[in-house]
């Protein structure tokens, strides 16, 4: 333990005066508590909302409604997971909702042209990945801020999807088992979402990729100085986010049974970013959790579903959603201040 060294004890911030081991574990517990707090608070908010809606509507926890809740939550959570990775490395992807609409069309056209279903799906995801790669190229190499890059890409992809589809929805063709596995069954849909959330949370907090993503967003210059290829890290996260957008679109296409050129769009993109932000991810980079974003998406889903059951109009819902984002952010920033005052 470094604390055992006799020298310089005068300059150690010795707050508790407790023994080394105790002080250390207290720090650690405090650190873990603070780290988990954001996720815990959003989870508590979710539980309270569920209790409230169950009492007022009596059907909120019915299996039918839980299936509906999954529909509201799962694909937003998948996109939010990718968006968190991009946000943590200090960038932003606004185009992901349009990729959500594009990917299933690519799959559909490939499938119609004779490509088997699975390779067709993979082709759809690959095209989504290419969109992410173009985002990365323009942002990293051509140094256009990602807000502008992906704003341009948002319109470009949307226009492209409308053009190739002629503006009309089509039906995905697959066997029943395949359709269910790909998202028509709520169980499959939630398994997709939870698996992706857990894997990406692991990637973010336990692998070199995740560590370098945090470093790139937290201190871009410092990360470059120690030799991290920050451009490459950003590129990987843009591609990942875009591909998850494509996957979410594909899953929803099979769930709904229709591939709609107007599906997703800015609405699902903003829902995903809102989920990430409510879940504790900073837009400035360096800090965020995928699990938090999942809970964020869940709370948004609960609100939407609960208000629908209660007969509250969509207009009211948007007002409440906006208020929730503002309140969450004010609280988060206040907590960060408190933490800095208490920690330093």
């Amino acid at each position, binding site marked *: 333990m470094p604390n055992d060294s006799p020298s310089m004890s005068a300059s150690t911030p010795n707050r508790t005066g407790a023994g080394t081991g105790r002080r*250390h574990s207290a720090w650690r517990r405090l650190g873990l508590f603070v780290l988990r707090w954001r996720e815990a608070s959003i989870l508590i908010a979710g539980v309270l909302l569920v209790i409230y809606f169950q009492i007022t509507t009596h059907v909120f926890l019915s299996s039918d409604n839980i299936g509906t809740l999954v529909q509201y939550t799962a694909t937003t959570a998948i996109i939010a997971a990718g968006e968190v990775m991009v946000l943590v490395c200090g960038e932003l992807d606004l185009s992901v909702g349009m990729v959500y609409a594009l990917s299933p069309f690519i799959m559909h056209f490939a499938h119609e042209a004779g490509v088997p279903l699975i390779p067709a799906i993979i082709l759809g995801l690959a095209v989504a990945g290419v969109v992410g790669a173009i985002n990365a190229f323009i942002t990293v190499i051509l140094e256009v801020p990602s807000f502008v890059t992906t704003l341009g890409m948002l319109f470009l992809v949307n226009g492209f999807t409308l053009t190739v589809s002629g503006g009309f929805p089509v039906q995905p063709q697959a066997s029943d088992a395949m359709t269910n596995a790909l998202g028509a069954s709520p169980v499959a849909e939630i398994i997709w979402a939870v698996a992706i959330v857990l894997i990406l949370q692991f990637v973010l907090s336990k692998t070199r990729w995740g560590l370098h993503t945090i470093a790139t967003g937290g201190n871009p210059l*410092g990360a470059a100085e120690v030799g991290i290829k920050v451009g490459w890290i950003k590129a990987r996260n843009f591609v990942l986010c875009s591909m998850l957008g494509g996957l979410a679109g594909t899953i929803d296409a099979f769930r709904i049974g229709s591939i709609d050129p107007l599906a997703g769009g800015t609405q699902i993109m903003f829902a995903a970013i809102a989920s990430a932000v409510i879940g504790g991810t900073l837009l400035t980079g360096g800090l965020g959790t995928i699990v938090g974003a999942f809970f964020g998406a869940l709370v948004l889903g609960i609100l939407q579903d609960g208000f629908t059951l209660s007969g509250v109009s969509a207009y009211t819902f948007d007002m409440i959603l906006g208020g929730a984002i503002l309140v969450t952010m004010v609280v988060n920033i206040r907590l960060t201040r408190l933490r800095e005052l208490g920690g330093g």
Partner: protein
Amino acid sequence: MVESNEVIRAEHVSKSFGHVTALTDVSIRLRGGEVLGLLGDNGAGKSTLMKILTGFHRPTTGQLYFRGEPVELKSVSHARALGIEAVYQDLALVNELNVYRNMFLQREIVRGGPMHILDDKAMRRTAMEHLENMGVNIPSVDVEIARLSGGQRQAIAVARSVYQDAKVLLLDEPTAAMGAKESALILDVIHRLKEKGEVCIIIIAHNYAQIFDVCDRVNLLQNGRITFDKETSETSVQELTDLVVNEYRSARQAVQQH
């Protein structure tokens, strides 16, 4: 003419950026285990010299020698591969990451496989051992860097460079904007490194008391030249102060006469 334990040497190095001459003619040498204090006014060329020694800039004229052999530092990573490490004032630490993850940033201990799963246990243990070894005292290696004081952060940045097998360590004003207590923390770390004698250090500094505390030798850089080179035992705070005060006075006069 080459001393056997000389680690790095610059001979008649100059550096110009277009019409601006940052260094006119600098010769500087550093022996194994030695701590050299580099003094100089703002704009005297200290940063430029430091960046030449770390391979960030190439000298316009002149020659660098590493362990007696002529060397052309092609890049920062080339200099690093030789064991020349710099700790700049921005420290290149990531506030959001804890101490041991910062210590191992870009040189993480990972378990095999394509995922590169971090071995946090091993990094934590090694970081603790290494920091203890260097006498760097922090509350815990699990805290985020953001929660540490300026002195503790600097100490961690120095410890990271030393851990990465530095043979030559360049410290850019390590005690800038620090109180006496915080500075003492860094100076103690430098003292310990000196006792071990495995690394030689160039410290850019302003504080003479600190220079006399830790440095074996002092160089003064004025207008792109080394104008003073003495063992600290052969000079005094008074002598250095006089030199710098004289420089200041003549500069003032030059401005006034203009």
